[in-house]
């Protein structure tokens, strides 16, 4: 069993914060392709066109027959055939996290692989493999116990591959909306120490305020993503005390491009969701980055909740989809920047939310609770991109299979 995590002591103010090293990103295009799939929570290996063998680590051609390789989802089982404990390393990150247990796993898919081991896994065990991303965004295989063990998620090696909310302090940007409130509650339920809950207009009441602000662990903060000064003020107050940022702010209005769309709505969407995201990142990214290896509650992630229609556009919600598209583009760039500092950048993608701005959209619609569950799952698994609901999943699957077709389908 794993020793359960306890909240960290306050930091000694005389100690220099530990610098969060990230291994240099020297991986191949094939490894990058594996990372992209790992980010979606898939367990994939390359399979040869000709000899049908699965291969690992990622390569450009089949090592057996020189055939072409394809990424395919694979069974997650494996057996640990050997284990070893690394006690010295020249890697600037790992040398601070020694000893480190690794093993050789015979994957059910075929290949042998060097894998990271959960503390409850030993030689001879059958294990459940996960394809994780390390803090630099590189793919890595991690062996988990086949069956859930107690406090399994608290394993110190595993926690370096996730952004688990447990004992972390989390900023949720928009507490005025049901989504932000559901996310805040779910994060506390998942063990977060504190949720700083943003309020864009502290002088104005909002639905659910009394209930959410009374919850132990919720700390209301003034935060308006359209006001640079407000974000800078909050970052100055909280910067070093926020381990995860979750941006749930949205401005959704119906309307087309040539017909029925309002320019003022588009401006509001872009200002809140796009410029606002950049304001938020500029204010909090430096402080997060400086604390990416700062003990059990090291800064870990920046999560952005956006519409799946950022991938495709969406008839009837053209402006909101444009904002989502810009948001996804910013998040992609931010992910690259933050990978160099050891902070994960995650996208939670949603279908139409069951709120007052989607009254005319027929079900299924995603509930705030589903979005909250997806946020927690992404953090607990370290997954980069997650779909919160069936609609988002369906659009994502179609988009991955045929982007041009899906774009047409979503804009009919």
């Amino acid at each position, binding site marked *: 069993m794993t020793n359960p995590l306890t909240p960290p002591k306050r930091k000694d103010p005389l100690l220099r914060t530990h610098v969060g090293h990230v291994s240099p990103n020297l991986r191949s295009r094939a490894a990058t392709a594996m990372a992209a799939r790992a980010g979606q929570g898939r367990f994939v290996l390359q399979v040869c066109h000709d000899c049908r063998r699965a291969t690992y680590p990622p390569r450009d051609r089949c090592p057996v027959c020189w055939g072409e390789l394809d990424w395919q989802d694979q069974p997650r089982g494996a057996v640990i055939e050997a284990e070893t404990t690394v006690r010295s390393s020249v890697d600037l990150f790992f040398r601070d996290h020694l000893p480190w247990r690794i093993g050789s796993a015979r994957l059910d898919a075929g290949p042998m692989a060097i894998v990271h081991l959960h503390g409850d896994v030993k030689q001879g065990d059958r294990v459940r493999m996960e394809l994780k991303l390390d803090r630099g965004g590189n793919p890595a295989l991690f062996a988990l116990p086949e069956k859930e063990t107690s406090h399994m998620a608290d394993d110190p090696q595993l926690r370096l591959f996730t952004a688990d909310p447990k004992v972390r302090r989390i900023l949720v940007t928009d507490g005025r909306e049901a989504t932000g409130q559901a996310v805040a509650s779910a994060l506390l339920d998942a063990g977060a120490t504190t949720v700083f809950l943003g309020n864009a207009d502290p*002088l*104005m*009441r909002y639905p659910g305020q009394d209930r959410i602000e009374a919850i132990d662990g919720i700390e209301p903060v003034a935060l308006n993503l*359209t006001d*640079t*000064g*407000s974000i800078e003020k909050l970052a100055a107050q909280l910067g070093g005390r926020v381990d995860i940022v979750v941006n749930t702010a949205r401005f959704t209005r119906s309307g087309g491009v040539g017909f029925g769309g309002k320019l003022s*709505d588009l401006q*509001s969407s872009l200002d809140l969701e796009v410029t606002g995201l950049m304001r938020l990142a500029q204010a909090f990214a430096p402080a997060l980055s400086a604390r990416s290896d700062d003990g059990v509650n090291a800064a870990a992630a920046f999560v952005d909740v956006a519409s799946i229609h950022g991938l495709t556009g969406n008839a009837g919600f053209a402006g909101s989809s444009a904002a989502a598209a810009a948001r996804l583009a910013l998040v992609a760039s931010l992910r690259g920047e933050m990978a160099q500092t050891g902070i994960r950048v995650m996208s939670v993608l949603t279908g139409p939310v069951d709120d*007052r701005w989607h009254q005319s959209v027929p079900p299924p619609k995603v509930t705030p609770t589903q979005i909250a569950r997806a946020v927690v799952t992404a953090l607990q698994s370290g997954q980069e991109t997650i779909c919160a609901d069936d609609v988002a999943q369906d659009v994502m699957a179609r988009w991955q299979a045929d982007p041009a077709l899906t774009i047409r389908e979503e804009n009919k």
Partner: protein
Amino acid sequence: MSQSLLSDLAVALASGAVRVIDLTNTLSPDFPVIVLPAEFGQCAPFRMEKLSRYDDNGPAWYWNNISMNEHSGTHFDAPAHWVTGKDLPSNTVDAIPAQDFMAPVVVIDISAEAAADADFVLTRTFLETWERENGRIPPRHWIALRTDWYKRVGTPEYLNLLEDGAHSPGPDAGAVEFMVHERNCIGLAVETVGTDAGQASTFTPPLPAHSILHGNGRFGLQCLTNLDKLPTFGALIVACPLKIEGGSGSPLRVVALVGETNA
């Protein structure tokens, strides 16, 4: 005109015999704006984005890009702001004669009534009683309603937006008709976020201040501060809206000149 009039004023300003009172709230991102039902377009609050501050974006200079609605902060309402004033001549801020930007003000103190009842409604009867006690409202004056509402800025009680709407004082139709047609006011000047009462959308006719003032070419001044520093009669308001082409209103700096005899 006597050549000495303006030079006398200049001397009085220099000596402090005429004081300049700032009636303007600070334009900041936090300053509340009027809130409409969510399905309508919303009034954009003041926003400021730094362009440079002696940095790589401008090494020796500091300046900001600002944005806002025409009706954010302390602001001026032109007749074109309301549908009733849409066809009037010179009904936008760029077309209003500059002569109208300086006018005397009569201050009607309803602060006690407003403190007792946030929904206090100013009526013609109230104004007639007020005139018997204080004197007749002279023509071509701003009529300023002192409510001390400005002291609520920075609290939820400024907009005072409850689940049944906003609660703040304002005039009914009879009072506005009286001010416009019988006292020929230049406009109505208030400390609240609008010239109308918070509940005025439920009045008959709805929003009488906006409707009647602007329908008759009169102006509004809103979100003023310091009306309690003005005498009942004798102060002069300087209120020059930005010259926005076709603009319905404008944030502006409003000051009042107060002579020592008023003090």
